[in-house]
């Protein structure tokens, strides 16, 4: 009866020092199906796929292909068995052309010379057959992320892979690109290829998969047919308790403008033009304004310029009635708190303890120092208070090394620190990136609570679900400009997607009236 299973991973156990990443996990992939692998961060999805791709050797368990037991010692073995993988972070050589990237490692040669003509013909045929549009002679560094992903897919097809693993493939795509990818995946399945689709986005899993296997904390929870389940049931399986998927919030009651940008410009490090180009908008007390857009359209620079990490090249920033266009970072910090995009780069000093991180901006306050000496007792007491209040979990409490904490708890620590500073403006950049459903639920709740306390929240997010769920007003950013302003009640993901991709735009500036 197992003959229809093209890949079987039976009772896989993989241990790392101090942690069991996969504990007796069984996964059966049928021919021609799209099988979703769902789980929170750290649930063991990536480990399991790495075992299948030959990057790790399991301590226990066997892998079977077409009923035959196989040994996969490295990725070359996996390729030989027809297993291909699109990694979350693409494995492409930026200065090579698309064609060179596709054939790299599987080149046809004659007497040591590359035979690119045949390769080109084969790739062109594949590209046409599946509608995977790529420019074979462009360098990878010049093409869009969406096209880079198509290159990765073509790499698998070029190697005649029958089993395709997609590791969180939609994280970097626009809604339209996601739709195209879904269609392509279904096309593959129809032809008898088998697809493993790793994701924690429930919408996509519901839309495209045939079956779902759920992992939690390294354990196998179950496999269900997609048509017999729904989003709520899946997320409950994934988290192990009932989860609030939609953010519950009352309508916003905006007050005075807390933050005003006028013709704000920030130079780009990558090119000569402005990364943020004459942007004007307000954020009022008691509302959540969300900047939506595809990664790399100036959102990062906007926040850097606003918080002082980068110098602006024009325009004004007014915060609480004060012109802070040229103020120091510390000066700006008097009225704003900033949950940074990159928690390891800006958010935390990883070599510091949790308590040292929790006073990163406040160590000089009277309460934490006497004549230049840090008041350890006060710091520890404050850390204990925040840890309790925001439920930050760590091995040794205040003295835990920040580096040793999980991503979700690192983010919680940052959120605790920033929200507890009680500033009128909160700038939150991708506050839930890489976090699991439980943590996302918590952080969204906190941001809404802050809004209801009368704070102004500027949220930058790449996740459209988050944008739609959380914001009171949406500004779409494209190539450094605000190209549209929307009310989340009166728009949908499709419309936002068109603006995000630059296909549509409001009149220049999209300035609020």
């Amino acid at each position, binding site marked *: 009866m197992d003959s229809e299973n093209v890949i079987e991973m039976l009772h896989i156990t993989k241990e790392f020092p101090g942690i069991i990443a996969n504990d007796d996990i069984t996964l059966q992939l049928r021919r021609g199906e799209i099988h979703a692998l769902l789980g929170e961060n750290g649930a063991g999805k990536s480990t399991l796929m790495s075992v299948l791709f030959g990057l790790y050797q399991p301590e226990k368990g066997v892998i079977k292909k077409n009923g035959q037991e196989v040994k996969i010692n490295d990725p070359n073995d996996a390729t030989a068995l027809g297993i291909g993988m699109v990694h979350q972070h693409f494995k492409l050589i930026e200065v090579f052309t698309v064609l060179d990237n596709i054939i790299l490692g599987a080149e046809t040669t004659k007497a040591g010379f590359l035979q690119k003509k045949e390769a080109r013909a084969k790739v062109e045929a594949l590209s046409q057959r599946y509608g995977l549009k790529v420019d074979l002679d462009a360098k990878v560094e010049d093409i869009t992320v969406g096209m880079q992903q198509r290159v990765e897919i073509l790499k698998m097809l070029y190697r005649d892979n029958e089993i395709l693993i997609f590791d969180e493939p939609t994280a970097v795509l626009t809604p339209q690109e996601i739709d195209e990818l879904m269609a392509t995946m279904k096309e593959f399945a129809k032809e008898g290829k088998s697809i493993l689709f790793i994701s924690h986005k429930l919408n996509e899993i519901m839309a495209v998969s045939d079956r779902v296997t759920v992992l939690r904390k390294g354990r196998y929870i179950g496999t269900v047919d997609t048509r017999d389940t729904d989003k709520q049931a899946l997320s409950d399986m994934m988290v192990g308790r009932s989860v609030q998927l939609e953010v519950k919030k009352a309508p916003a009651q905006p007050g005075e403008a807390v933050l005003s940008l006028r013709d704000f410009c920030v130079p780009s490090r990558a090119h000569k033009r402005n990364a943020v180009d004459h942007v004007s908008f307000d954020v009022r007390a008691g509302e959540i304004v969300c900047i939506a857009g595809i990664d790399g359209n100036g959102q990062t620079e906007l926040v850097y310029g606003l918080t002082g990490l980068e110098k602006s090249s024009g325009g004004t920033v007014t915060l609480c009635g004060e012109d802070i266009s040229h103020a120091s970072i510390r000066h700006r910090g008097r009225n704003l708190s900033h949950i940074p995009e990159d928690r390891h780069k800006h958010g935390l000093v990883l*070599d510091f303890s949790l308590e040292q991180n929790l006073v*990163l901006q406040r160590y000089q306050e009277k309460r934490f120092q006497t004549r230049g000496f840090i008041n350890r007792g006060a710091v520890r007491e404050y850390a204990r208070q925040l840890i309790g209040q925001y439920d930050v979990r760590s091995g040794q409490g205040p003295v835990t090394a920040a580096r040793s904490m999980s991503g979700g708890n690192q983010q919680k620590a940052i959120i605790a620190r920033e929200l507890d500073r009680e500033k009128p403006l909160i700038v939150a950049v991708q506050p839930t990136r890489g976090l699991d459903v439980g943590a996302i639920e918590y952080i969204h709740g906190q941001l809404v609570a802050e809004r209801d306390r009368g704070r102004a929240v500027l949220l930058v997010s790449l996740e459209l679900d988050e944008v739609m769920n959380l914001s009171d007003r949406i500004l779409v950013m494209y190539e450094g400009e605000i190209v549209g302003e929307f009310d989340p009640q009166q728009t949908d993901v499709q419309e936002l997607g068109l603006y995000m991709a630059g296909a549509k735009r409001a009149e220049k500036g999209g300035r609020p009236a």
Partner: protein
Amino acid sequence: MKEKWRQLMERDGARTVASSLISIVIGLLVGCIIVIITGLASSSMDGGSVWDGVRLVLGGIVSTGRDAAGRLTFGFNPANVGNMLFRATPLILTGLSVAVAFKTGLFNIGAPGQYLMGTAATLIVALSIPTSSVPSPVVWLLAFLAGILAGALWGAIPGLVKALLNINEVLACIMTNWIAANVVTWIFDGSVWRNLEEYGKTNYIYKTTHNGVETARAGLDALFPGSQVNWGFGIAVGIAVLVYVFMTKTTMGYELVACGSNRHAARYAGINDKRNIVLSMAIAGGLSGAGAALYWLSGNTEFAWLTYQALPATGFNGIPVALLAASNPIGVIFTGCFMSMLNIVGQQLTSLTPYNEYITDVIIATIVYLSAFSLVIKLWLGGRKKRPKAQELAAPAPAAADGGEEKGGEGA
């Protein structure tokens, strides 16, 4: 017992100490191996002198010479211990200099230059203010402070260059080192501070005792008779404790270490990273300058002012001292003493056996090499049971044997 060891190795500090100790043991063993090989390869040495060499490498600090029968004797040697403490004094301070910069994420390879500038300032002040009109302790203090200030200013230059122009501090330090070497020669060339009284000593500056300025020995000379030790050692230890307190307990230290551990996060938190880079390099320079001041104010040695061709080894040796101590200011006290002990060992080898003192440079080089591996050794200690394979990581050690340190030209 095993359980206790495992618990101990779960502590980060214990692992750091253990990894440094392992580096030291391997370094000493490599020294022994080289003593054995060169001894056996030499026609002028027999098994006896090889055995003597090995014993001196391991226990030179407690060597008391040879008895009437020509056998090596061992026991407490107050002169050796006293000299070790004296030589440790500048090493502790240059070690602190490098360690402070490391903690701030900077590599202060400019300690030799800062040390030279400190030397020049100290000697000029100590020799120029007449002790007939100003009490000598006051002159001593002024000379000490001048050394610190000169070192601090010299250290601040690479700091400024890095903060304002984003030029790598290693490059700037190397250049300021050689500028210092030439500036010092230029200052003393034809100056009145050259020793013109003793025949053949014009390449040297007067000892500070020439002007009646020297560090107090009060009691230490009775404790370690026949040695050069003075209270400069106590001052160095005191400074190390102060640096430790500064780095770990004060807001300024917090800022410096935050900048060093993650410059981006420090900036994000509103800490002025550029100011901290300059401050850190100035402190580092001041510590090197203090090392120079204490060394020359001892009055034990005279300074050879033709420095334009060579940089003082004391400055460079601050790097292994700091590395071996994992940049811990308290640890620097011990590693500084260890390095100066190797120096004494080298002397014992030279005077008691046909070997020469350079064997100790091989040992230092091996230890430096291994301290770069200290993180690996630490990991190995942490997860010994799970990954016995890591043992082979200690293997590259002998490769360090040919990486001997350049010997600087320091007047002695």
